[in-house]
């Protein structure tokens, strides 16, 4: 596979791009693999890439019921940050940020990781206490995150409304400079291309009918419409579809799948550089390299795989954005879409081994999966290759729901009293 560079681009331009080659082949399904990864999103493709690159395991298939990158990888609002409170979470997400930085060069694919900074707004005394708790924990964990006064926040982000008479006044903000955004599709494509180059088969439009187990209870392979495929190890990384797939292996999970909606505005010239989040009013916003305002909201209230989502939530999200940014009220919504996010009871992922020998699980990222992509994929590959978790994902077990050792970031944020 040829290397992308300005030179090859120029060559292509001069020759009318006559010699372009597919970025990844649409592979045929073989009858047997060392590892099959279910779900060709960023996490699954990334794990395949690291299996090949760091563990020398290349007889790998990544299998997806649709097109690669067609799930949450391509449906999120592309926010990347690691300013999590707990040591476990901070390490996991910060590992990802470390890998994001340099991922374009590593993959020879520009994923446009943009460290424009993430600003999280505090709107009441409780928010201030909670964010400061995060900031101090982050600092002692070596994760950058600083407190901004309302005026400092406004200086960084001029369209912000910091009027003290606002319904939810800005009382300050936590700001992580290393955080930012990346081009979501490019992450899937870059990993796919790099994994395929190392021999990984990418199998699209092939749903998994069931995970089959052998007489000893360990995984035996997958049943698909294209036939049975033997596998020594199976790793499920299927986001909203995880429960359904795992159920076929007899593993029931503490997961629920909710619709999550996001939207973009018509594109405008750059107006603010950061990602701005407000948990209190349930909205977050950034401006894409194309100029669109990218806006996310909370999940709808009921479980669903319909990807439709309701109007009231969108109305509330937009009203919230317009409170924080009153100048955007005359902007227009261009397109709204929905994803399906799988949520655990403590809203932290499950990333590791399962009770079934040879079956590995990466799920439960809720609304936060994209930011973790390289870090999650990296330690997941380690877990699959070594049959034991990497120290970073060791706490994110399935068994924590039995022992009570939850990693509950949301609960730590508690509630206003």
């Amino acid at each position, binding site marked *: 596979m040829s290397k992308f560079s300005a030179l090859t681009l120029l060559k292509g331009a001069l020759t009318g791009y006559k010699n372009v080659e597919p970025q990844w082949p649409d592979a045929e399904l073989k009858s047997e693999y060392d590892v099959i990864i279910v779900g060709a999103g960023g996490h699954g493709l990334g794990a395949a890439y690291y299996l090949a690159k760091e563990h020398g395991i290349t007889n790998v298939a990544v299998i997806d019921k649709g097109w690669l990158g067609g799930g949450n990888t391509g449906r999120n609002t592309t926010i990347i940050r690691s300013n999590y409170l707990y040591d476990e979470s901070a390490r996991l997400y910060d590992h990802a940020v470390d890998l994001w930085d340099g991922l374009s060069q590593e993959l020879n694919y520009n994923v446009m990781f943009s460290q424009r900074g993430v600003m999280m707004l505090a709107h009441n005394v409780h928010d201030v206490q909670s964010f400061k708790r995060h900031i101090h924990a982050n600092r002692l964990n070596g994760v950058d995150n600083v407190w901004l006064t309302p005026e400092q926040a406004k200086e960084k982000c001029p369209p912000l409304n910091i009027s003290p008479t606002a319904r939810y006044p800005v009382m300050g903000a936590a700001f992580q400079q290393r955080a930012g955004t990346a081009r979501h599709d490019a992450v899937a494509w870059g990993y796919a291309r790099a994994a395929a180059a190392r021999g990984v088969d990418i199998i699209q439009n092939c749903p998994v009918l069931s995970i089959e187990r052998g007489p000893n209870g360990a995984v035996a392979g997958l049943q698909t419409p294209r036939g049975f495929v033997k596998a020594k190890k199976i790793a499920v990384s299927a986001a909203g579809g995880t429960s359904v797939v795992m159920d076929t292996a007899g593993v029931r999970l503490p997961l629920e799948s909710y619709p999550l909606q996001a939207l973009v505005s018509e594109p405008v010239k750059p107006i603010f550089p950061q990602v701005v989040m407000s948990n209190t009013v349930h909205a977050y916003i950034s401006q894409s*390299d194309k100029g669109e305002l990218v806006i996310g909201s909370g999940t709808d209230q009921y479980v669903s795989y319909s990807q439709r989502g309701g109007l009231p939530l969108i*109305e509330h999200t937009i009203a919230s954005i317009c409170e924080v940014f009153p100048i955007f*009220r005359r902007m227009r919504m261009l397109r709204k879409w929905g994803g399906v996010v799988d949520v655990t009871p403590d809203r932290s992922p499950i990333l590791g081994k399962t009770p079934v020998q040879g079956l590995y699980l990466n799920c439960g990222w809720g609304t936060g999966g994209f930011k973790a992509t390289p870090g999650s994929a990296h330690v997941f590959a380690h877990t699959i290759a070594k049959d034991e978790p990497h120290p970073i994902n060791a706490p994110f077990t399935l068994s924590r729901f039995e022992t009570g050792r939850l990693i509950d970031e949301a609960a730590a944020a508690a509630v206003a009293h």
Partner: protein
Amino acid sequence: MNNWRVDGKGRINRDKRVRFTFDGVSFEGFEGDTVASALLANGVHLMGRSFKYHRPRGPVTAGSEEPNALIGTSRGGSGRFEPNTRATVQEIYEGLTTVSQNKWPSLNFDVGAVNDKLHKLFAAGFYYKTFMWPKSFWDKVYEPVIRASAGLGVSPAEPDADTYASRYLHTDLLIVGAGPSGLAAALTAARSGVDVVLVDEHRELGGSLLSEAPTAIDGKSAESWLAETVAELNAYPNLRVMTRATAIGYYHENMVGVAEKLTDHLAEPPATAPRERMWRIRAQEVILAQGALERPLVFDGNDRPGVMMASAAQTYLNRFGVKVGNAAVVVTSHDSAWYAAFDLADAGVNIAAIVDVRASVSEHLQAEARKRDISIKLEHTVTTVLGKKRVSRVKLGKVSEDGNVSGIGTVSCDTLLMCGGWTPSLHLFSHTKGSLHWDAENEVFLPGEKTERCHIAGGGRGLWSQQAAFDDGVHAAQQALASRGQSAPALSIDVDGDRTGSGIIMEELPSNDDKFARRAFVDFQNDVTAKDIRLAVREGMLSIEHVKRFTTNGMATDQGKMSNMNGLKIAADELGRPAPKVGLTTFRPPYTPTSFGTFAGYHKDALFEVTRKTNIDSWAEENGAVFEPVSLWRRARYFPKTGEGMHGAVARECRQTRASVGMFDASTLGKIEVVGPDAAEFLNRMYTNPWSKLAPGRCRYGLLLGEDGFIRDDGVIGRISNDRFHVTTTTGGAARVLTMMEHFLQTEWSDLDVWLTSTTEQWSTIALNGPNARKILEPFMEGADLSAEAFPHMALRECTVGGFEARLFRVSFTGELGFEVNVPSEHGRALWEILYEEGKKHDMCVYGTETMHVLRAEKGYIIVGQDTDGTVTPVDAGLSWAIGKKKPDFVGKRSLKRPDMLLPTRKQLVGLLTEDPNVVLEEGAQIVEAGDTAIPAKMLGHVTSSYWSETLGRSIAMALLEGGFERNGTSIDIPMPEKTHRATVTGTVFYDPDGERINM
């Protein structure tokens, strides 16, 4: 006013001239014009620049699907500018100012157009392959440059000066689109008496009837038929017509969002009129009569100003009385463009040629063309367009059977009209997740299985002619009524001189030029060419979804209305697969871009979200309180006297309360009345504490866990009588606690005879704390002896205070002698003022939440949500005493036995005293072992509460600390950026450890 108006044509009001500006130049149009039609009437085609290559562009359509003619608009004044408005939709009004976008320094001379010269470098997805070296250049050089070129228009810079509205509407039948099929459906349904709502995005009803040359309908001219029909419809009381109202989204259970524009066409809108209104229309049945959109043809130079959809030219002529050029070439693969050519020819436009790629076209059309002396070029194609800011000539070629094209020279023209067939408008249907099926013969997607009660009529079903549309509209209305069990008589609308037709679909017009050298645009706004799509396919983008994301085809502000089908056809061609195997990207709401304000509706400023205020809040405001938001409530935080800051005010409030008495508005505390024979048993099951033996007239602290064993809420619970409890909750927890109780009661314990009623707002609650608290109350008591003997700590009475019926609790959240008086809410302020007057005799202060926090912290009383988060058990919080040891079960009990809950290393609530008594720790600060300076640090916990204690003359703090109980008396460090503070771990009670003051 100019040469481009055609006498006798158009539905504009020629009696009313309207002036507006475009890029600072003043233009004149007529009432009823859009910006585009008025500019075209003034001979202006160049209205914008494209996104990537900054190519000059003019309007290619006359409708809301316009990708090119996007402008900034304003009615002047602050907060009324908006970018990216489609000039083809915006009506002109006196005083409208408009500007072109994405150009510098001017629309005519745009430096950014240099990109067009480099277009070979900027192939699809080029940015994924470069800008990576050297790494440090990305954030410093590449990305800033990429970002600087982003966007089309500029963002508004001031807060919006307008308001927005919303409304719910329920109807039997909603009809979207008032073209022939929508009108026929509306007539049929309205005559049958059902409730009908008819919405259309244009300023008047009629749809394509407004754009086409007159046919005869029911023996009348189309114009008079339409006028009569509109009059008839408007007369039905059971029919509601909305114009300038775009159905933007089709949601669950037949709810359609309709964005209605109310003032953007008015020179002087009424002062209190909203700018736009969001209708949420819930219809029993929906008829989608949105027609079809004409497809552009894909060929070199198809984006030049002057190249336009044939139907758009027809619209400009027949609706606006504007001819879009003097000499036009028509290139088409469908009969419909022939009719456009005839209309323009009849209006005096010189049609230089009709170029049709098909070998055979109906004799009738050819005869009509010959009648008008139009040159007919069958099996011909346009290979390229010459002219930069306006078409000047087109190159024609003859297409042989094998697809080879031989040039036959050029034709001069100022306009090139194109038509590549018609695409049914199924956007709203697609929102419902209705399936689409591929009609291979006509190469269109048609509606398949439905998920909602909707009916598609006319163009949306691929029907193409007025008669077919009318008939289908009638049919759809009959079907809609039938599914409601009603019937409607068939209505027959007869069209004379109907224009029927057919055509074929091309991926690109035939050409011998290199496919990878042509500038044949598919997505005009995003500058996606056919070459880009072919290149994407060759790079392995095998699905249309990948192609779309890789090339950005279909992601412009027209959301693929102009580009999706052509993109699909080209990708399918490159792949050698049929189009449906390549997929179709799903259409997403909104149908057309819709103002944020319209979605937000009334939710703005004070009405953004409820602000709850107590009955006493107004007194606090009048007396200079500083407020803080606490959940939905606003609460008085402190009451500064002149010159006092928060620190001074709080110190004084604390001093006065401890020394004499302080008064506090505790009305926001949640209250739940729990009534019934099983009330005590219910509370036994919900709360950790035992309730059976609590005597009437007494109260007790209650602790509520979630089923996961973590603390959810707390509060004092009083037993009013055997079967009646007065439960209090935290301010923020009130609704959650009641919900949780109802959930258990209704779904698990429906055997219990007990009922719950929220009484939070029934009562105003005034807390009096301090050694003189009794003195304040006593003068106003009727029916209760307040002495320590008769009314001890944790007693309650129903009595009368100050003449108001009251529930009086002797409780304390400060460690001082304390009372909480509950009186019916509307009397809260009156009693407050009575007590305030009395307090003047005793140096009483009023205090707010901040002082409340300090006073309770001095006593080690926790605040759920501050000293606990969702990970703290009763044991962790030092509240083991609140667990009824003999109770077999309560919510959360089992979870407390899980292995992780029993670890001695859990974080436990302790007190902290800093070595330097003047250091007030920051709440949220993290704790490490004394002397530990490593990063990453091993963090042991965090400071939950921290205050200056005026009473103790030093700082105090509480913290959740790993193995905290065992660490009592040891030192820990709190590393802050500027300095590390050392503190000693203590118990949490800093003041009056023996609790004597509470029993005074």
